[in-house]
C-alpha cells in the first residue's frame, strides 16, 4: 500500500506535479501544519468520491470517529439507491484492536450483504486499522469469492495525507477493481464519463437535461447519481470530462492510458463555462451536427437565462465579492459571478492546481493581489473590511465566521441545499446572492443597543 500512496502523490496527470523536481514530488501533496490546519484527511477524501454511489454499501473499518461523526452529512442527491444515507462501520473496540478485526470485518460484510443486498460493497481502511495491519485486500478477495458479490478494498488511512490524496485513493480503487469489470449491453452514440461531479444539492439534475437534449449520454458518472453498474462500463465511453480538476484527474489519465479515452477539464458554473464544456465535448466527438446543436441550445438557454436574471442583475452590478473556495470552483465561480456583473476582489488558491491558479490570475489580469492563500476566519473577515466587500462566498465552514462578521454570505460547498450548476443554477445563485445582499438583517444588527446610545 505504501507504494500505491507514493504513486498517487506523484500523479503525473496533476499538472502541478509535472513541473516538480523528483525531490518535490516526494513531498506529496502539501503537508498540513500541526496546530494550524483546517482540512479533512485522506479517508474523508475517499469517502467524498465513493459515497454518492448509493446502490452499494460502504463499510468503514475503524473505530467510531471516522463514521460516527461523519455520516449523513453530505448534500449529494441520487436516484440510484439510498445506501449513501447509511453510516456503516465495524466500530472497532479495544478487544478488536488487540485480537485483530478481520473476522469482524468479514462478519460485517456478510451482515450487510444479507440485510441490504447491495450491488457491491466498498470497505475502507482507516488510521487505526492500517496501523494494526488489517489486510482489507485479502478480506475483500475472500468475501468476493464467498458472496459472489464484488467487495472492493479502499486504502484510505487518514494519516496518509490530505482530502485530495484520499480522492485519488478512491479513484484508484475504482480503476483497479470496478472500471472495465463488466461490458455494457449496448453503447450509445455519444457516451461520456463525467468525472468528479457529486450531484451536490442536485447540481447534476440541473445539467442532465442539456445532455439529454443534445443526445449526449452520461454513460458513467463518477460519482454523482451513479449506479454501480455504470462505473463498471466507464472504459467504453468515448470521452472523459473532469469536473473537479484536482481530485480525480488520476482516473481520467488512467482511462486515457489504458483505454485511449481522451479527457479534458470542464465546468458547469456559469453560462460561459457551460457552453465551453458542451462545445468541447462536441468537438472531441468530432460531430458538426453536435456542435450546431450546442450552438443552438446554448444560445437559446442564455437568452432565457438572461431574461430570468433580469430582475437580479441590477442589484448585483458592481458589487464586490470575496471568494474562498477550492479547486475548480476557485476560478469557474469567478466567471459565473463576472457574468452577473459582480466584481471579485480576491479568490483563494487552496486546493487549486497550477492551471487553476493561472485561470484565476487570468481573471485578475495578472494581478497577484487577487490570489489569496489559505486564510483563517479572522484574515478573511479582515479582507472583507479592507476591500469594503459586499458579499462573502465560501464553504459551510466559513458560514458562521461570516455571521460573526455580520457580512452577507452564500454557501458554495458540499453541505448546502441549493444547486448552482448550468443555466438553472445561475438563476438560483443570483436569487441566493440577492436574498442575502438585500436582507434587512444586516442593517438591523448594526443598530446600536439602547445602552450603547449616548444621550446629549
Amino acid at each position, binding site marked *: 500500500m*505504501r507504494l500505491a500512496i507514493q504513486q498517487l502523490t506523484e500523479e503525473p496527470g496533476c499538472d502541478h506535479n509535472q513541473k516538480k523536481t523528483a525531490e518535490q514530488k516526494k513531498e506529496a501533496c502539501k*503537508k*498540513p*501544519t*500541526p*496546530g*494550524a*490546519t*483546517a*482540512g479533512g*484527511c*485522506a*479517508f*474523508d477524501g475517499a469517502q467524498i468520491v465513493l459515497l454518492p454511489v448509493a446502490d452499494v454499501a460502504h463499510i468503514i473499518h475503524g*473505530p*467510531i*470517529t*471516522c*463514521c*460516527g*461523526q*461523519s*455520516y*449523513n*452529512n453530505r448534500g449529494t442527491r441520487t436516484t440510484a439507491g*439510498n445506501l449513501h*444515507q447509511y*453510516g*456503516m*462501520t*465495524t*466500530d*472497532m*473496540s*479495544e478487544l*478488536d*484492536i488487540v485480537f485483530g478485526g478481520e473476522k*469482524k470485518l468479514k*462478519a460485517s460484510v*456478510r*451482515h450487510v450483504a444479507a440485510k441490504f443486498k447491495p450491488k457491491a460493497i466498498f470497505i475502507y481502511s482507516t*488510521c*487505526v486499522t492500517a*496501523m*494494526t495491519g488489517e489486510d482489507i485486500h485479502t478480506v475483500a478477495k475472500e468475501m468476493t469469492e464467498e458472496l459472489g458479490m464484488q467487495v472492493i478494498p479502499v486504502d484510505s488511512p*487518514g*494519516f*496518509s*495525507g490530505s482530502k485530495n490524496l484520499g480522492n485519488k485513493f478512491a479513484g484508484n480503487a475504482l480503476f483497479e477493481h470496478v472500471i472495465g469489470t463488466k461490458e455494457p449491453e449496448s453503447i450509445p452514440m455519444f457516451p461520456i464519463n463525467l468525472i468528479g461531479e457529486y450531484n451536490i444539492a442536485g447540481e447534476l439534475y440541473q445539467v442532465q437535461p442539456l445532455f439529454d437534449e443534445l443526445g449526449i449520454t452520461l454513460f458513467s458518472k463518477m460519482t454523482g447519481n451513479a449506479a454501480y453498474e455504470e462505473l463498471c462500463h466507464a472504459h467504453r465511453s468515448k470521452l472523459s470530462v473532469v469536473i473537479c480538476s484536482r481530485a480525480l484527474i488520476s482516473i481520467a489519465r488512467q482511462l486515457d492510458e489504458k483505454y485511449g479515452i481522451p479527457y479534458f477539464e470542464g465546468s458547469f458554473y456559469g453560462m460561459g463555462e457551460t457552453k465551453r464544456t458542451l462545445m468541447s465535448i462536441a468537438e472531441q466527438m468530432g460531430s458538426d451536427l453536435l456542435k450546431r446543436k450546442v450552438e443552438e441550445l446554448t444560445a437559446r438557454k442564455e437568452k432565457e437565462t438572461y431574461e430570468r436574471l433580469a430582475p437580479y442583475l441590477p442589484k448585483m452590478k458592481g458589487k464586490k465579492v470575496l471568494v474562498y473556495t477550492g479547486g475548480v470552483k476557485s476560478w469557474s465561480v469567478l466567471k459565473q459571478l463576472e457574468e452577473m456583473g459582480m466584481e471579485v476582489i480576491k479568490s483563494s488558491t487552496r486546493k487549486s492546481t497550477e492551471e487553476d491558479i493561472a485561470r484565476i490570475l487570468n481573471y485578475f489580469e495578472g494581478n497577484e493581489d487577487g490570489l489569496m492563500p489559505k486564510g483563517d*476566519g*479572522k484574515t478573511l*473577515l479582515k479582507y472583507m473590511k479592507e476591500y469594503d466587500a459586499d458579499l462573502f462566498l465560501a464553504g*459551510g*465552514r466559513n458560514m*458562521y*465566521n461570516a455571521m*460573526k*462578521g*455580520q457580512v452577507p454570505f452564500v454557501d458554495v460547498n458540499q*453541505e448546502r441545499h441549493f444547486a448552482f450548476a448550468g443555466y438553472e443554477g445561475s438563476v438560483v445563485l443570483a436569487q441566493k446572492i440577492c436574498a442575502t445582499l438585500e436582507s434587512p438583517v444586516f442593517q438591523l444588527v448594526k443598530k446600536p443597543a439602547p445602552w450603547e446610545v449616548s444621550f446629549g
Partner: protein
Amino acid sequence: MVKIIDKPMAINPLKKSSLMGAVTAFLGMHRVMPLVHGAQGCMAFTKNFLTQHYREVTPMQSTAVFDIATIIGDDSNLHEGIKNVIDKQKPDFIGLVTTGMTEVRGDDIKGSLIRFREKYPEYASTPVVPVSCPDFKGDAETGYAAACAATLSQFITPEVRRDYKTRKMVNILAGMHLTAGDIDWLRRVFEAFGLDVIVFPDLSSSMGGQVNHFYGLPEEGTSADMIKNMAHADFSIVIGGSMEASADILLERCTVPYKKFDTLTGLEASDEFISWLMDYTGKQAPNWLRIQRQRAVDALLDGHFSFGGKTFSIAGEPDLIYGLGRFFTKELGIRLETAVTTARSGKFENLPAENIIMGDLDDLEEFSKDSDFIVASSNAIPMCHRVHKPLYKAGYPIKDYLGHFHRTFIGYYGAMQLAFDIGNICMTLDIEKSGH
C-alpha cells in the same frame, strides 16, 4: 436489562466518539483551544459536526499526524502543534485530546509533555490538559466527563485559599445533555435563592450565540480563574450521572460536598431539586417559580388526553435518555418500547423500557415497530422518513433545525415545554388517525 444485539458492526451509529465529547467540554471554557492529537480528519469531522450543531464558530485544532515516520512515533507533531497553537492563538490553556490512532501506537502523552516542557521552557506559562480519548472506548458523554475531570485534576489543588464571601457559592457540574436554555434556567433559580454559581463547563455562554464578533478561541465559558475558584465553593451539584467524577475531585481535594441529580427533567425531578434548594438555603421559592410549576401542571393536564395509549422509542447518550425517558413514561404515561444507548453508565434500572439496547439507530429502527414517535438526534431523520414516524429531536447532532440549543428541557419550564411539544406530536397523530 440491557440487551446487546448480536450484530458484528454499527449501522447508522448513535455513538459519537469520546474525542467529540472532550472537544465539546473544552468549547465551554474561556480561551481554551481544544487540540486533537491525531490525523486531520478526527478534528475536521468533529469541527464540522459541532459547527452544524451549534451554528457557531467552533475553534479547535489538530496536530495533523501525517505519514509513517510520525506514526511510528516521535514527539514532533505534538510539540509543533502545541507551539503553533500558543504562538498563533495565545490560549489560556490547551485541552489536548488524543485519538484512537495516537492511543494505538501507545503514545506516552504525559511523557511527551514533560519532554515538551524541558525542550521549550519559553512556553511554560500555557498549561496543557491532556485527556485520553481512544475512540475505540467509551462514547461522547464519557469523553466530555473525562475532559472535565482532567481539567479539574490539573487546576484544583488542596492548597487554594478560601476567600471571604458574603454569599454562598455553588458549583454546577453541567452534563453534556444540558442546553443553553437549561443553564439559563438554573442560573435564574440559583440567583433567586441567593446563591452564586460557577457553571462548569459553560457552553451556554460560549456556544449560545452571545459572542457577537469573530473569535479564534472560545469566549465566555468557564475561565481558568473560575475553575480554580470552584475549589472554594460551598457545594457542588452534579447534573447527569456522568459528571460525578468531577464532583469527586472537588470533594476529595477540597472537601466541597455535592449532591447528584441524575436528571432535572420532569415535575418530580424539579420538585426534588427545588426542595433541596429550599432546605439548603432555608429560603422560600420565588413567585415566578411557583407560577412556572402551576403552568407545568396545567400543561400536563391539557396534554394528557393524547399521551395515554401512545408508545415511543428513544436513542441517545445515557444521561439524556434517562431524563427524557423517565419523564415521558412515569409522568406523561407514554409507553417506552425501546431505549437505545451508547454506554452502560446510565441508571437504566429506573427506566421502564421494554428493550434497553446498547446499539445504533439501525437497532432503533428494528425495535420501534410499535412506536408512534421517535426521540433522537437528526441522524434519525432518514430512518423516520423510511418508517413514516415523527421525530422529536434531542441529543447530538441537531442539524437543519434552528434554536434547539435554546430550548429548555429541565425544571418546571422544561416540563411545560416538553409536555406541549410531545402533546402536539401526539395530538397531530390523533387527528391524522381520525381521518381529519
